[in-house]
């Protein structure tokens, strides 16, 4: 018993000691233990700063305005003279249509014919029924039939068409007349043209002048022993002459000869007859005159000889000079003559063709006048048909006022009238055969080709109006669209080329694909852009200063809105204790890495990341410092 008691007491003592030891250990290391279980957080200080929130988006460049070519009636296309990508100016021909009526017009006219036929039939039937009872109706019917018979002799076209044809024929006639008048006026003015008249004068005067010069030349030939009477270029001859006479050699020779002759003459007692005799009789000269003188004279004479004998010697040249002058003048006159002849020929050709044209126009006019007179006659008889028809109608309508048949007739008549007005309108509005551009730009797309039908009121061609700038459309959410305003400018975000492209927000449109959620921002682009380029724009708002800026990871969303977790520190004897407090905030602005918030002051610390989700008031510990 005693042993047991001792054993128990020992055991109790050991247990107590172990218990106290454990208690002490836990107390000393309680902080560490607790810290180990607390979630770790990383935090940052809230600071003031600037945020430049940039909205980025990309889109495709397109021309600011696009012109869609349409025609009002369906026509067949003859040719398309422009290509995609081609620049066109106002007035350029974009489409050439076949010169036939539009589909709508054709259809309306065939409808009109059917309606008319059925109306006439109905009228006749009604007439037949009515005429059984009424003499007046019968008479009117007979008159109508007669008028129709007369009309058919003139023309087989529908009487109502006649008016149109007549009008067209008359218009053509007046056109022809105008053309003829124009041609005649041109002809008359040509005839009076001064150039022409002058040329004719030249022609007629030339003969006289030429013959005068020829006779002058003949006279000269008789007197001047010129060897070459057909020389020309008097000027060069003159120069040659001057060259020779101006040369010192010649002058010396002349002077020498003069001296020699003077001496000779003196020696011959100043008697020219003696001189002549001496020259003609050399033996006398040898006796009479000094040998030296003779030698000198002979030498001087021989020196001078080349100037007077020889093909192109001075003497000949001098003889040639007047001939050359004459020949030059003759040549000039001949040239004038040729020119004048050409001018006159041209004018006369032109006048001939105008004459011919005038003649053919006259023939056309006569033909047209004949046609018109035929048409008028036919039209007059058609008028008769119409009057007869109207008379019959009136009788019938008066007779059968309460008859359902007459209502039908009236309705048909109304339909006819309506259709005729429609056709008139269509004709009025029918397009020309050439569709010209009313704007300038680049052809973007062509959806028709030669030979195909161009439907009414559908886009046949699209032209980008490139002189009105380019636009870029970017799709953004409705909230993002609220943050930008018209007039904001944007920059290009592309890494490789520096461009001088500027973009300005022109308008904000609804996105047709997603009208409730997104909007289209339309930017006007200026600078070096081309259509179909894909560009990324960055629309920056003015950077604004904010008091409280935190990293994006500090802002958390919860069921009660957006919050940040503020780290509060309390120092205690066992070290710093950290707790987090939830603070509701509003995000005022945001960029890629940080947000500006309201509700927290600068200088506070907010939790950016944590190892576990945190609740309000939870204790945490700071993350270990990492190098």
């Amino acid at each position, binding site marked *: 018993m005693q042993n047991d008691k001792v054993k128990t007491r020992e055991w109790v003592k050991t247990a107590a000691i172990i218990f106290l030891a454990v208690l002490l250990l836990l107390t000393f290391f309680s902080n560490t233990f607790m810290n180990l279980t607390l979630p770790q957080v990383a935090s940052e200080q809230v600071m003031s700063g600037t945020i430049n*929130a*940039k*909205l*980025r*988006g*990309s889109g495709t460049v397109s021309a600011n305005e696009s012109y869609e070519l349409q025609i009002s009636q369906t026509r067949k296309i003859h040719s398309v003279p422009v290509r995609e990508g081609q620049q066109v100016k106002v007035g350029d021909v974009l489409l050439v249509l076949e010169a036939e009526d539009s589909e709508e017009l054709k259809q309306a006219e065939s409808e009109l014919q059917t309606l008319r036929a059925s109306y006439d039939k109905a009228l006749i039937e009604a007439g037949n029924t009515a005429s059984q009872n009424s003499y007046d109706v019968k008479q009117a019917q007979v008159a109508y039939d007669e008028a129709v018979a007369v009309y058919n002799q003139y023309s087989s076209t529908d009487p109502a068409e006649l008016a149109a044809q007549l009008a067209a024929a008359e218009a053509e006639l007046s056109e022809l007349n105008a053309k003829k008048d124009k041609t005649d006026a041109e002809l008359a003015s040509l005839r009076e043209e001064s150039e022409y008249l002058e040329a004719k004068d030249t022609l007629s005067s030339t003969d006289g002048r030429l013959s005068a010069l020829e006779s002058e030349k003949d006279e000269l030939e008789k007197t001047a022993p010129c060897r070459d009477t057909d020389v020309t270029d008097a000027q060069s001859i003159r120069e040659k002459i001057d060259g020779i006479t101006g040369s010192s050699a010649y002058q010396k020779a002349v002077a020498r000869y003069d001296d020699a002759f003077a001496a000779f003459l003196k020696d011959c007692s100043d008697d020219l007859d003696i001189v002549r005799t001496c020259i003609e009789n050399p033996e006398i000269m040898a006796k009479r005159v000094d040998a030296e003188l003779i030698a000198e004279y002979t030498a001087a004479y021989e020196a001078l000889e080349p100037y007077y004998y020889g093909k192109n010697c001075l003497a000949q040249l001098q003889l040639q000079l007047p001939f050359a002058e004459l020949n030059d003048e003759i040549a000039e006159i001949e040239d004038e003559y040729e020119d004048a002849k050409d001018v006159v020929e041209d004018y006369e050709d032109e006048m001939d063709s105008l004459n011919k044209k005038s003649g053919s126009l006259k023939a056309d006019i006569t033909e047209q006048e004949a046609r018109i007179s035929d048409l008028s006659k036919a039209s007059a008889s058609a008028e008769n048909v119409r009057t007869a028809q109207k008379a019959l109608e009136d009788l019938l309508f008066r007779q059968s006022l309460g008859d359902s048949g007459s209502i039908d007739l009236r309705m048909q008549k109304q339909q006819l009238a309506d259709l005729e007005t429609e056709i008139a309108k269509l004709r009025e509005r029918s397009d020309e055969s050439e569709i010209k551009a009313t704007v300038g730009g680049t052809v973007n797309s062509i959806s028709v080709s030669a030979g195909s039908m161009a439907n009414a009121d559908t886009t046949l061609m699209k032209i980008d109006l490139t002189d009105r700038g380019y636009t870029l459309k970017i799709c953004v*959410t409705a909230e*993002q669209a609220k*943050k930008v305003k018209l007039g904001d400018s944007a920059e290009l*975000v*592309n*890494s490789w080329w520096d461009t001088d492209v500027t973009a300005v927000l022109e308008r904000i449109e609804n996105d047709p694909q*997603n009208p409730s*959620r997104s909007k289209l921002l339309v930017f006007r682009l200026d600078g070096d852009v081309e259509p179909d380029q*894909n560009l*990324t724009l960055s629309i920056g708002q003015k950077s604004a200063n904010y008091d409280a800026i935190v*990293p*994006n*990871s500090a802002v*958390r*969303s*919860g*069921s*009660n*809105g*957006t*919050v940040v977790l503020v780290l509060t520190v309390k120092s205690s004897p066992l070290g710093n204790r950290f707790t987090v407090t*939830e603070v*509701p905030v509003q*995000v005022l*602005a*945001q*960029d*890629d*890495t940080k947000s500006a918030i309201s509700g927290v002051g600068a200088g506070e610390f907010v939790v*950016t*990341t944590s*190892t576990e*989700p945190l*609740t*309000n008031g939870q204790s945490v510990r700071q993350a270990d410092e990492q190098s």
Partner: protein
Amino acid sequence: MSKRKIQSRRRRRLEFKQRLTVIALVLLLGLGVFFGVRVYALQHTLHTQNAMPAWVRDDTYRYAQTSVFLPNDTPAAENDVFSFRQALAERLKTDSMQAAEGGSLFVDAYSGKQTISVSTRRMNMDVKTIGVGGEYFLFHPMKLLSGGYLSERDFANDRVVLDDTLAWALFGTTDVIGQSILIGTREYPVVGVVQREDDFASKAAYTDGPGMFMSFSAMNEVQPSGVNAYEIILPDPVKGYAASVVKELFSPNTGSIVENSSRFSILPLFRVLGDFGRRSMNETGILYPYWENAARMVEDHAALALLLCVVFLVFPTALGVYNAVRWSRRAVEEATDYVAEEIEKMVEEEKEKNYVRQGI
């Protein structure tokens, strides 16, 4: 042999048997507790299945987390998510639930996957990208190595978040906040680097290599994509409300709906055991995202642990119950005997008092 020796041997054998029984019992109990703890641990391994504590801040309503997974050939479009949000808001209003001032009653995330060609000055590679919308990172709170997450509140939608492997591959460092990556001809700024989940299930389930996150609308602009996973936390005032509302209002309804917040409770885990065999069959043609695959793996492990826990605890519990019953019966018997004795004693005393003193 002497009787004493036999008796003492018998007594020793008895003691040995008793000790053995005790050890076996303790062992069984220990194993049971171990597996019970393991079940608990597994229930709290995956953050993706337990996003509510991070978001729910008031206790006006009970909440539940639900996911919808759609097959690849009939994914949802972004617009389907938006119309679901509207329909849900109206339904909650009709069912007279109201959000706190400035807050909201539900939060969701949607995602799709594409392979996108990404390049930087260093290199270019094809990256498996998850296009995210809503508050994706609330449901997938991966550890942030730098920067921040993507959120639907972001002003610009062309931001990207890389995982650490991708940041290393593209830039050679994880400190890449402020740099940009290039997709096509457009630059996308990097705003965050995350580290992938490191629990055993997520590690086994994630096989896509270096990965990237970008906003769904931006990914859709690069390559048209569909939504194949949608996660939402919404009020669940009565059991099954959340799942039924989602099933009814979400379109297209070709997907499978999972209630994440209750999938690891005891009964659903038993159901997993019940589906044993059938679970491995894929009849829906849905390719689950990696986090759902991880969750299913955890479910399998947890179910198994639960089974073992139950099996190990069966015998000790039974024994405990048996002993408890026997002890209580004995106690009751003793008590009644004692009471009977006392009553007799009292009767004798009274008899003596009344009758013996009076000399009867």
